[in-house]
Structures are given as C-alpha cells and as structure tokens.
C-alpha cells in the first residue's frame, strides 16, 4: 500500500478540513489517520492517506493540493511516507 503524508500548515480559518477532505474524496484517496492542532493561532494538520486507488498520478495531486492551499493561504504538501521512515527510523 502506498501511504502518503499530507501536511497542512497556515492561518486557521473556517472549512480547511472540509475543503481538503472533499478534494481527497473526489480523487478517491482514502484517509487513514488525521491529527490536527492549533499552535499559536496556526492551523497544523497531518493526514496519512492511502492513494492506491487514486484516479491520477500523485505528482499531479501534489500540485493541485498546493494550488488549493494557495487559494486558502495555506501550505499544503503531499509526500511519500518513505522519506519520514528513512529519516526517523533505523
């Protein structure tokens, strides 16, 4: 299974999770885990998603999500889980 980590960071506003989740549902990407906090007024969310059934290449999803983030003044990035495993697990 290809696990992808989506991180959303920026100023908190209404509907961030709704918009991100709607987008993911449209692309047939399954959310496996969400953790979210507000740190000093800043919205911080990490999602672990399964993109195995995704309808388009992940690189395009990453681009579109970054654009979606720009619309809301947020930084959104999608990264393959392996970079975090490599860096933080022996």
């Amino acid at each position, binding site marked *: 299974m290809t696990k992808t980590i989506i991180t959303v960071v920026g100023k908190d506003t209404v509907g961030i999770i709704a918009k991100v989740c709607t987008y993911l549902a449209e692309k047939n990407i399954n959310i496996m885990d969400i953790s979210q906090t507000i740190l000093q007024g800043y919205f911080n969310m990490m999602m*672990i998603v399964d993109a195995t059934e995704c309808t388009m290449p992940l690189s395009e999803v990453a681009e579109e999500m970054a654009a979606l983030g720009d619309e809301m003044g947020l930084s959104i990035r999608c990264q393959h889980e*392996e970079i975090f495993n490599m860096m933080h697990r022996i």
Partner: protein
Amino acid sequence: MISTYEVIETNKMIDEARLDVRTITMGISLLDCIDSDINIVNEKIYNKITTCAKDLVKTGEEIEAKYGVPIVNKRISVTPVALVGGAACRNEEDFVSIAKTLDKAAKAVGVNFIGGYSALVSKGMTPAEELLIRSIPVALSSTERVCSSVNVGSTKTGINMDAVKLMGEIIKECAYLTRDEESVACSKLVVFCNAPDDNPFMAGAFHGVTEADAIINVGVSGPGVVKRALEKVRGENFEVLCETIKRTAFKVTRVGQLVAQEASERLGIPFGIVDLSLAPTPAIGDSVAEILEEIGLESVGAPGTTAALALLNDQVKKGGVMASSYVGGLSGAFIPVSEDQGMIDAVNRNALTLEKLEAMTCVCSVGLDMIAVPGSTTAATLSGIIADEAAIGMINQKTTAVRLIPAYGKSIGDSVQYGGLFGYAPVMPVNPYACDDFINRGGRIPAPIHSFKN
C-alpha cells in the same frame, strides 16, 4: 507510525534549513567509445550519453515531487577523456572537439554540468594526457557545461611536479581566455591529489576506470540543517555538540540514500555511493562558515577554526556512514569561499587568509576551493600553491584539490561575480615571494614512506 513531530521536523529542515539533495550524478563509462577515428569517437560519445542519461533529469524531477525534497542538480560524469580520446586525438583541437561533443550531449539531456574532461597523471603523463591538459583552456572557454580535473599526485605515487608546473600555466591561460567573463573557466577546473573515482560533485567529478558501465551517485547537502540543530545546543560541551552533528548528518544522509536507491531503481542503473558532504551555497543560512561560528568562533578564521572544522568533518562522516549502504566520493565539509556567504564575510573582514584556508584543508573534505587571487599571480606561484595542497593530500592520505581563480586584470579590493551556485569571491592576497626555482626543477616528488603498506 510516523508522528506529527517527525513530519514537522523534516519539513522544517526542507523549508527553513534548506535541506536538499545537491546532485544526482550519473557516471557513464566511455571506454567503449574508443576508436582511432575522432569523428567516430565523437559520434559514439554523443550517442552513449544521450542514451544512458535520456531520463535522468525527468527521473530527478519525479523523485523530487514524490518526496517533496528539492534535488538541485542533475549531472553526468564520464571516463577521463584523456583515456577515451588517446587513440584518436592527434592534436589539441581533436580533444577540444570531444569537449564540444560533451557540451552538446549535456545540453541535449538537460544536465547543468558534465565532468570528466580529465587526465590522471599522478606519476607520469602520456602524450595524449599532456595534449588533453594543454587543450583545457580552449575546451573550457569554448564550452559552457564541461568541467575538467587533473589528478597530479597521490599517496601511492607521489606528486608529478611536471604536471604541477604545467597546471599553473594552464590555470593562467584559462583565466586569460575567459577574461571577459570574470575568468570563469577557472571555476570549472580542479587540480587534485588522491582524486576519488566516484565523486558526484563538480567541478571535479569523473567516472573512474574502476567503475561499472554506468552508475548513480548522489551528493547530499545540508549545512543549514546542522546549523539549526547546533543553535539548540549552544553552550553545551563537546560530547553534546558532536552527538548533535552526528544525529543530524544521519538524517540528512538517509534522504540521500532514499533518493539514490529510487533513482537507481527507476533508471535501471546500479547505485554507486552517497557522498555525504556539507556543500554550502551563497544563499543565507546555507553556510559551513556559519556552522563553525555556531560552534563558538567569533568569525571563521579565528584561532580554533581548524579544530572546529576537524570535528565537524569527522562527525559528519560518523553520522552519515551508518545511514547509507555505500559511502564514497569526498564526504565531509566543503569550504569553498565564493559559494559560502560566511566565508566571503570572513575574507572581507580580514579574518580569513589563504594560509588559514590551507591549514583548514588538512582537515576538511577537499581543498582550496573557489578562491579568487590577483590576476598578477604568476603561474609558478599557482603551481607552488598546488604543490603545497598536493603535499598535504599525499602525506595525510586524503583528497585535496585546488580551484583557484587568478582573476584577469583584478587585484586586492576587487571581486569576481558569478551568481548562482558559484556566488562571488573577493580577491585575496597571495604571499608575494617567488618559488620559481622550486617549481622549475622538474620531475616528481617520491611517494611518502607510509605508502609502502604491501
């Protein structure tokens, strides 16, 4: 399961501390392009490079998107051209035609540099090798992306002082031929002692004859990441300091290992090595000098600089070596002047001299790198500096190199401006006393006693 803290830490390294993979370098053997007809050699070289590396840039970009980590450069290194062209090249122009072919192939596949316009002459020079060396100034001034290196010594062979003498003259000529472009050809020419066969970093990369037909080598970077990590342990003792550098180097190198494995798999080319070097860029916060200052120096160049660099270099290796299945290349901390804002500032405030840099090269990963000296510096003086550096490498069994820019028409107070990764360099003073009689002796310096380990 990965925690939010770990994800944020990685992304902060990328966003704020400029963690990147500095280069994916594909090494390509050109030994099968050897022919006695120069036109056939050129045709074979072009075809081989554009076939092997046709997907290199695209693959690099795909990996970049997949993991969200920048891969700054995609490059190629080839077999030393003196070996490839030896049978076909009758004169310097023949060698220059190969340089032009390499440049054309580099442009066709979209890589920003191609290294390997090189000769390995640590003991003696064949006529072909001497022809290649003599063709370097024209080759580098008539091409854009070709990089050249010459290995003039090693611990096993001693130092070829004839080659050292010749290289002083060649560097001067490179400076003159590109006098209208800040003597830029000198920034693409490295003189080595103990050159490694698998270095992915330019300008000194070449694909050694000990290597396979094609190989993927990756150079990681991340001075900014180390600097940020050290900010959190200010005032702590050396144990804590060294431990922090090791942990950080481990994490940075893991990214390189991941990228190297993935690139190797996607391109169907074996993974060679990860070079775990701290490679600075002129960007703010991407400086090796700033790490040394964070360790506790008021300015790089102050007493203590060599010790601080020695521990940094060693901890980087110790942390990185466990993070990758194969470590090679140069691995350590680079100390180029023009490519490191902290070094430039130190030179401008008269804290850092050429002599101190020479001392630092005893413990850093390479040598005197990207240093501008007055245009009036003689060829013999340049050769003297090369000989000093080669001697450090030979005796200490380490790689050393010289990449000096005797900036044509410039003197102390001026600077050379390249922009981009090469940055800018203030012209530094050189000891004014001559060494002509030493350089003119000719012959070679024998290998040191500790080279006889058989």
